[in-house]
């Protein structure tokens, strides 16, 4: 049986790993390769590197650190941020990334998803979605969330975008629930359950992990394939070996070494 994945997300800014609360106030968390190796040794199933400075600054991702990570780790990793054309994606994949994740550029130009799927196969193409509940009760997407001053609200319903992204060739969806992100009160199970119903490709939950029980809940109750978290891992609040022991004891299939 396919194991549920535990995925530390490393937000990268100017070549360092950072983490903020509700996308603001970024704090330095350490060197990329050092953290990548630590997570690999602890049993992370996959890593996501999200270059939060790339999209707002209209820059493309710096391939130097992608190569450095690829040379050292032997688990899969995904690179997100600033990929807006096939050539950039190709460069990042050739540098050793296993998947690329696109968010704002896909909403600006949805055909990008198809172009990437055509060039590399859908299994390389992850669509990241930042979603927030608006006052009318609808979930809608946000773009350029790496920089609060540049964040945009393109009036697209999250659920519509989840369906459209898959139709265009997304091989995986990462749903970041902004209302719960950074506050450690658990994943947004309600929203994830609804999105799960619409998702025939793998779905990764993001935003809200604060304690091990939140992982068990999101796997059991929202049936997601992977759970992504950042600060609880970086800060040492949750250690992956213990998290996996707990999940295994509760009957959730996770990878052992």
């Amino acid at each position, binding site marked *: *049986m*396919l*194991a*549920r*994945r535990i995925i530390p997300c490393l937000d990268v800014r100017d070549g360092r790993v950072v983490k903020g609360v509700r996308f603001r106030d970024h704090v330095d968390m350490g060197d990329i390769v050092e953290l990548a190796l630590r997570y*690999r040794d602890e049993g992370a*199933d*996959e890593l996501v590197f999200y270059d939060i400075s790339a999209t707002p600054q209209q820059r493309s991702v710096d391939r130097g650190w992608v*190569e450095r990570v*690829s*040379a050292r780790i*032997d*688990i*899969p990793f995904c690179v997100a941020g600033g990929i807006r054309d096939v050539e950039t994606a*190709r460069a990042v*994949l*050739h*540098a*050793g990334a*296993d*998947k690329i994740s696109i968010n704002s550029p896909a909403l600006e130009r949805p055909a990008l998803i198809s172009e990437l799927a*055509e*060039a*590399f*196969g*859908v*299994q*390389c193409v992850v669509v990241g979605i930042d979603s927030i509940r608006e006052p009318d009760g609808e979930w809608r997407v946000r773009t350029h969330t790496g920089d609060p001053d540049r964040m945009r609200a393109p009036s697209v319903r999250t659920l519509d975008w989840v369906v459209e992204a898959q139709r265009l060739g997304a*091989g*995986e969806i990462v749903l970041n629930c902004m209302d719960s992100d950074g506050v450690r009160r658990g994943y947004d199970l309600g929203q994830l359950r609804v999105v799960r119903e619409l*998702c*025939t*490709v*793998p*779905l990764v939950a993001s935003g809200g992990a604060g304690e091990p029980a939140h992982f068990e809940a999101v796997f059991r109750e929202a*049936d997601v*394939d*992977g759970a992504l978290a950042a600060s609880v891992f970086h800060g040492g609040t949750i250690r992956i070996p213990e998290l996996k022991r707990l999940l295994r004891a509760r009957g959730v299939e996770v*990878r*052992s*070494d």
Partner: protein
Amino acid sequence: MIRLALVDAGGANIGSVRYALERLNVEATLTSDAEAIRNADRVILPGVSTAATVMRRLRELDLIETLRALRQPLLGVCVGMQLLFEHSEEDDTPCLGILGGRVRRLQTAPGIRVPHMGWNRLQPRRDDPLLADFAEGEFAYFVHGYAAPVTAECVASTTHGVEFAAVVRRGNVMGAQFHPERSAAAGARLLRNFLSMEPA
């Protein structure tokens, strides 16, 4: 020093395969030159892409017959393994036809998502030096939407909705559907086994 040719068919995981080999202290030659491939001691055919894209590229490079005629150990990885079979349902693509069987699309079902993405267990089907020192049910990292059938050449299988071939071998022709370069210790072991085994 073993001469290892890594076939450059435009697949995107070439970098990570080369790094995985470097971690085993093996220097691979990335090449699309038929002569260099023929003269290697071992050949690896990687390929993250689609079957049609890689086959088109192999045809353009005039490598189809070269690969079919190889006598030294050959390892196809992911799409590279699928291409060893006769045909892929992906864009209705005729493949190398070194192994019998047709590659088919994995089907979604309740709880079964496609692509098959993540860590899944290898179920050994027979003893083989390629899987020396593998325990029952070890995890390997998969990411694919099409899969090869379980035939007589299947050394280990994996189940995701249906059972499919995870590792295949007939003589010197071998394949891994999973990504050894991203499958932690188990992946390194498979690569080491491939590099150290006696040619059949």
